[in-house]
């Protein structure tokens, strides 16, 4: 991989989704993708900001973009689709001169936001490609049947995110196939998990996340792969709440796609934060260990 990439972790990745950050960094290191943290980065504003004021929200995101551009970077990646949406929304809104002017007043500096922003998934798929990724995989994910859950933001809003088929994305499915796993025919790939409604209306999240879990179980998957910290939290941390709400027990582990990729790349489980989950990840490791033992790898 050529020029270094500005890396915007996003707040969740320092707390509830630490394992997403850990595994992203570990994978990128192994893959030779150099990540340079955006200096002195701050929150992208997330839902509370854009629900309050568009210009304030854009200023928060723009500040981070400007900090990244100050380092001379022309490419930025973030693991979190919600952060990416905030950054891209700021970029697109600032194309309007009037809006840009308001943001510049708030920022106290020019808001020329020409840096290219992408998700980690997109960067890995586009800059490295499936073949290169598969080549670096030293341990196959054979035995895993992965339901890939993209969430609502990875491909939407369509015009802004411009990533894959908005209703039927396949990037993660193709990745896991390349890494030796099976892709489960999972129907609710881009359904909403309930997102931040967990705070004001918990039942909404339990209903929606419950459906996603049930569909993943129905697809015969033995692991659910995600790319969004909020999705992961709703499906993993709220598991007992969901079970209480739906009356259905489920032990399906919910892993970040970077954790699964890391396992294939031969990284140790501690480096991937596999112990940080609420729903145990042991079943996944057990399956893989059996595979690896029989194939004499790992």
């Amino acid at each position, binding site marked *: 991989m050529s020029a270094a990439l500005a890396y915007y972790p996003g707040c969740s990745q320092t707390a509830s989704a630490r394992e997403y950050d850990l595994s992203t960094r570990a994978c990128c290191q192994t893959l030779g993708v150099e990540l340079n943290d955006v200096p002195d980065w701050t929150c992208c504003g997330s839902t509370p900001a854009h629900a309050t004021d568009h210009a304030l929200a854009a200023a928060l995101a723009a500040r981070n973009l400007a900090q990244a551009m100050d380092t001379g970077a022309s490419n930025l990646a973030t693991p979190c689709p919600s952060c990416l949406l905030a950054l891209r929304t700021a970029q697109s809104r600032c194309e309007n001169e009037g809006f840009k002017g308001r943001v510049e007043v708030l920022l106290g500096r020019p808001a020329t936001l020409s840096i290219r922003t992408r998700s980690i998934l997109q960067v890995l798929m586009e800059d490295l490609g499936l073949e290169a990724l598969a080549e670096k995989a030293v341990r196959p994910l054979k035995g895993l049947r992965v339901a890939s859950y993209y969430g609502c933001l990875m491909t939407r809003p369509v015009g802004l995110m411009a990533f894959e088929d*908005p*209703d*039927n994305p396949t990037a993660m499915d193709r990745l896991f196939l390349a890494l030796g796993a099976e892709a489960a*025919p999972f*129907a*609710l790939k881009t*359904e909403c998990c309930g997102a931040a409604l967990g705070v004001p209306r918990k039942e909404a999240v339990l209903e929606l996340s419950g459906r996603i879990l049930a*569909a993943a179980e*129905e697809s015969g998957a033995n692991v659910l792969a995600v790319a969004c910290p909020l999705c992961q939290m709703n499906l993993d941390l709220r598991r007992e709440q969901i079970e209480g709400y739906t009356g259905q027990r489920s032990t399906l582990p919910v892993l970040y796609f970077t954790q699964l990729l890391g396992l294939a790349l031969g990284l140790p489980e501690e480096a991937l934060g596999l112990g940080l989950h609420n729903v145990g990840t042991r079943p996944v490791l057990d399956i893989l260990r059996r595979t690896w033992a029989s194939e004499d790898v790992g």
Partner: protein
Amino acid sequence: MRIGVFVCHCGTNIAGTVDCAAVAAAAQQFPEVVLAVDTPYACSEPGQRAIIEAIEQKGLNGVVVASCTPRMHEATFRRTVERAGLNRYMFEMANIREHVSWVGRDKKLNTFKATDLVRIAVEKLRYNRPLTAKSFAVNKRVLVIGAGVAGIQAALDCADGGLETIVVERTSTVGGKMAKLDKTFPTVDCSVCVLGPKMVDLAQHRKIKLYAMSEIADLSGYVGNFEVSIRRKATYVDWNKCTGCGLCADKCPSRKAPDHFNELVGRTTAISIPFPQAIPKKASIDASSCLHFLKDRCGVCAKVCPVEAIDFEQQDEVVKESVGAVVVATGFDLLDIRRFGQYGGGRFPDVVTSLQYERMLSASGPTGGHLKCPSDGREPKSVVFISCVGSRDRSMDRAICSGFCCMYTAKQAILTKSHVPDCETHVFYMDIRAPGKGYDEFIRRAQEEYRTNYVRGRVSSVYPKNGRLAVRGADTLLGTQTEVMADLVVLAVGAGAAEGSRDLAEKLRISYDAYGFFMESHPKLKPVETNTAGVFLAGACQGPKDIPASVAMGSAAAGKVMALFSKERLESDPQVAQVNAVRCVGCLKCLRTCPFGAIQEVQARDGSTKAQVIESVCQGCGVCTVTCTDRAIELQHFTDNQLLAEVNYLCRSWMEKSPA
């Protein structure tokens, strides 16, 4: 010159925001104006009479009417001045309604602008010259393109009226979509039973010549005298010999050919006749599935054909016909179902288009009229219909309503119950459009008598669940989300223009809208005419419409053709380009820019090259006049002097005075 100016109030349409009396008073002062008055309705009978009297009494030889758009009444007033003995081109119109009173609120400014427009008209009129039309003979044969129900109706009416009629149909049979339908709303009568006799009439009519499996390669000429080249596509069967016995299809070993007549539900043989009532009932070979063409073996059909009609060497052939008028009736096509991934279109076999569903219901369809899920052949116990799929959807750049889907969806829900009485039917809709005669009653029947569950709301996704399909959407009447389980999902996919419509429009020199539907000349007053004289429209090619409307439009187009052909000779419009041979240097730039091919190259007596306008072909668009660097070509009635008179006045007056 003695000019009269008439400023129309159009009731309050103009007078509401323009001081018409002030405009008339101002006009009184314009050069060569001898009379200027305002009038409540210039187009009314008393209004026109006043113009005629003024011409006679004041000895006017030029008239300006300031009123609505020329598209509305130019022809009316030209006839008025003609009745008073003036040449019809000694008349000018100033549009002070669409260009002034309807778009501006400030009465003072409006009056100012209206006065300017009247002045411009006067300035131009001072340079007008009487023009006279030439006449030419009409070839009283008509070409009908597309033989769906609209084209069939137009052809039969023309032929019954005694006209020789050429019908060109792209597929191997006439009938269009109607031939594919099972039953039709609102009477639920068998579609092909009503259409079939008309198809037979078409085939047997003495006056009709049918070219099936054919397309328009080229069309040249002008109203009354078109030359058309028709490409007859190779069918690899000599239709002069083929008796339609069907033996070839029985024996053909290639049984996986795509069945286009059945909308790709099921398969057919490489040589086939699309359906039992096909007209012409002739076999044709699909070369992309035929073993002879693919693998250079087989030839079974050639062996079994009792009349030796198979001809693997056959080539496309171009034939020429001359006609005086054209009726375009190429209908519509449904949008590609694969565009609707959110509903599983193209992803799940049990998600089908409405037209596929018609074939699945039809007794002559691939399942013999037994309703079966394409995935595993089981009988559906729940069918969900989704309406407005790709219609009224701005996210797809398709704001249009497809018009007939609400009705056929209700019909299909009713038919579903008569095939499988214990099958649940659900319709997701935005709102129901059923304005025709007996239509709303029909929707009611579907809801009440046939217990169709109508859910008002959009579907967000269709996904597989427990071996069936879950249809999730909003129920906006209950204000909740809802999920319905289905065995089969039918998408009322929006109607777009027929494939290849844009190409055809270019060949015919007619316009089309953003969706590819052909444009009528006027949305209210000229619905079957196009802006190209002698070319008429019928049926869904002009915009989605149901069978009754398509048939009515087919007859209307035939009526227009017959009215046109009721004259032995036609008058050409004298507002055409004219070459001043002395100035023309023969560069022929105009010949290359003319979109209508109305300019020809001629040799002058001294052997030099000159451009010449074919008056009957010229449409008066004026493109050539701006192309000609030597100002040798000018448009009659829009000469340089006339346009400059307008511009000169306008620029000078604006330099001298400006509005308040």
